[in-house]
């Protein structure tokens, strides 16, 4: 379809471009709304037998309406204390992980990068295990100490990765290789702790390592919301630099006036903060950070102005779906979300790998 030569051709193509952009924007909005609806449905899953109507009534009550006659106080507590925090965590956590994965892949130009391959998840697991074996778990604020320890270790790992980068140069290769090396190191550390641990501590460590949304309560949700609020606008501001770096390479981006090292540094710190916060509260949830960016890219394209928000939406969908699947498939047994997300994610990922390989030779 050759474009007709003429004054109007460029304008027509430009208008087409705008229409495409707007329709994609609409797609993101639709995805977000769909996710909200799905989240509402997920809020009805559980043994307490509270369907959509009752859940809605309870939410209304929590916002100030009087309690309906057919609802008991324990029903309200089930929704407010067991279900809602879990759903909120799935949405915020999935969004955070999806976003973190996308920016990391953009800034390293490597589609196989995720918070996991930077060693952060392994470091967080090691931090939690350390706290548990030091007996901190038994203290009154034990659970917070474990969370704190996981978070600190995750940040430490990131610092080492970027510290190494500063000395050797923050090329994508350096970042990735250092991250993988640290991942193995922390995994070995966790395994060592598991050997030294008493049976009870071992059970605690293993329990923590299985990513689960059950553990997280409202304090966790609030903490994650705060970190998200601090980092998301920042990342959106870097959307165009990310476009340039991802599509043109470091040198080209620099030649455009983009401070590539600074962008990489800030973006990775933000991604680390997001990931560390999520994992400190939920345990290790892999795959969302890896697969959500790819799925988002397949649907919405590579423009980070659209990709960033959409990968958050996809990430939230993934975690919600994984949690729902874990709850429904073997009811009343609840499969931890860290497990189901892999079952959902692996087939998708393999499919993507096959597709990419087919396309790589152009």
């Amino acid at each position, binding site marked *: 379809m050759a474009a007709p030569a003429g004054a109007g051709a460029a304008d027509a193509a430009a208008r087409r471009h705008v229409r495409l952009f707007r329709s994609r924007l609409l797609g993101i909005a639709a995805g977000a709304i769909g996710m909200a609806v799905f989240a509402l449905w997920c809020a009805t899953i559980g043994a307490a037998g509270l369907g959509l109507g009752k859940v809605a009534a309870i939410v209304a009550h929590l916002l100030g309406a009087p309690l309906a006659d057919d609802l008991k106080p324990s029903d309200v507590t*089930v929704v407010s204390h067991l279900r809602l925090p879990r759903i909120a965590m799935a949405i915020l956590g999935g969004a955070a992980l999806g976003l973190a994965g996308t920016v990391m892949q953009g800034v390293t130009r490597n589609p196989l990068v995720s918070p996991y391959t930077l060693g952060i998840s392994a470091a967080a697991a090691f931090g939690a295990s350390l706290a548990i074996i030091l007996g901190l778990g038994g203290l009154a604020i034990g659970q917070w100490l474990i969370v704190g320890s996981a978070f600190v270790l995750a940040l430490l790992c990131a610092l080492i990765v970027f510290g190494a980068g500063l000395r050797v140069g923050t090329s994508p290769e350096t970042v990735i290789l250092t991250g993988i090396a640290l991942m193995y190191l922390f995994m070995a550390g966790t395994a060592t702790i598991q050997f030294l641990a008493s049976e009870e501590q071992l059970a*605690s460590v293993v329990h923590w390592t299985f990513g689960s949304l*059950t553990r997280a309560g409202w304090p966790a949700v609030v903490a994650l919301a705060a970190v998200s609020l601090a980092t998301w606008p920042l990342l959106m501001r870097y959307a165009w630099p990310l476009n340039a770096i991802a599509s043109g390479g470091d040198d080209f981006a620099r030649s455009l006036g983009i401070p590539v090292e600074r962008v990489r540094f800030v973006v990775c710190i933000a991604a680390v903060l997001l990931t560390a916060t999520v994992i400190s509260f939920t345990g290790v949830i892999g795959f969302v950070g890896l697969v959500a960016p790819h799925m988002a890219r397949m649907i919405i394209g590579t423009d980070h102005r659209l990709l960033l928000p959409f990968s958050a939406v996809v990430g939230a969908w993934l975690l919600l779906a994984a949690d729902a699947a874990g709850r429904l498939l073997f009811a*009343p047994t609840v499969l*931890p979300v860290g497990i189901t997300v892999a079952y959902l994610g692996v087939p998708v990922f393999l499919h993507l790998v096959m597709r990419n390989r087919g396309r790589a030779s152009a």
Partner: protein
Amino acid sequence: MAALGLSMLVSSAWAEPIRIVDESGYEANFDGPVKRIVALNRYNTEFVRAVAGSDAVAGLDRDAWMDRDYWPEIEEARVVAANQGQIDYESVVAQKPDLLIVPRNGAWQEAREKLAPFGIPVVVLTGWDVLKHEENVSMLGLLTGNKDRADGLNAFFRKHMDLLAERVSGVEQPKVYFEADRENVTILKGSGWHDMIAAAGGRSLFGDIDVATLPESNRNVNIFTVEPEDIAAANPDVVLRLTPAVLAAVPAEKAQALVAELKARPALADSNAVKDGKVYLMSYYVAGGVSKMVGALQLAKWLHPDRFADVDPDAVMREWIEAWQGAKYPGRHTSSESR
């Protein structure tokens, strides 16, 4: 006098507040005896049923419930967790229990936090810890207002443990090769099974090994992989092999086949145990019954038949299963060559 007696009668009819302090130092208070308990981990569930009956079991985990022969009266709706580490709190709440008990290697911290708003206390009670057996049983008795029954169970336990201790004192201890349910997997000092063998007047074949000298990959005292040559070199006098933990007994042909396979193994073929025909099978249920008391009794009878001629471990097991658990005893779970 009469007034005193009357007031005592009256006060005992009134529910007295109950206060307990659990393993984690947590203090729980109840206005009266607890009627509905969610008990996670099979050993906990067993004790609750023994002390307070099936109806007191408001919830249990799937791992335990899966043995349908052992819990036929408990319907699936009472399953509230996959195991002691993966608990579905909504199901727990739906069962409206007064209390949740979890062993110390379960997710009790998480459970406490999640169930606090519902006013359901979480008590750490480790049923599988044989050293705490009597203490645990007494606590359950206190909690459920079944002190008499708890005392009875403890007496049942104590009577047989005392008998064992008395009769094996000073005896020559045969070397026992204990095999868990996989080939070449045995136990070490520190495992409860090691203590069971000692209580039965035996010596665990690898009981002298210092765990600290072992490589990291093979240090679990309950699952220790051993080289066949080491077994042969140690030359056990008795072989004790455990069979799967279900209530139904191992079918006779399978039992015979297993015994034959054990005897044929190169590591064991020349041992004293095989030569003397002392190869025994015991199910986990018997071995673990009443905190391994039944296992010890049965093993003692095999090790020192002359000293335990009057003791019938089968009857003890039957009493545990039928009188205390209210389940149907399907018959012996032990086999040896001579049977």
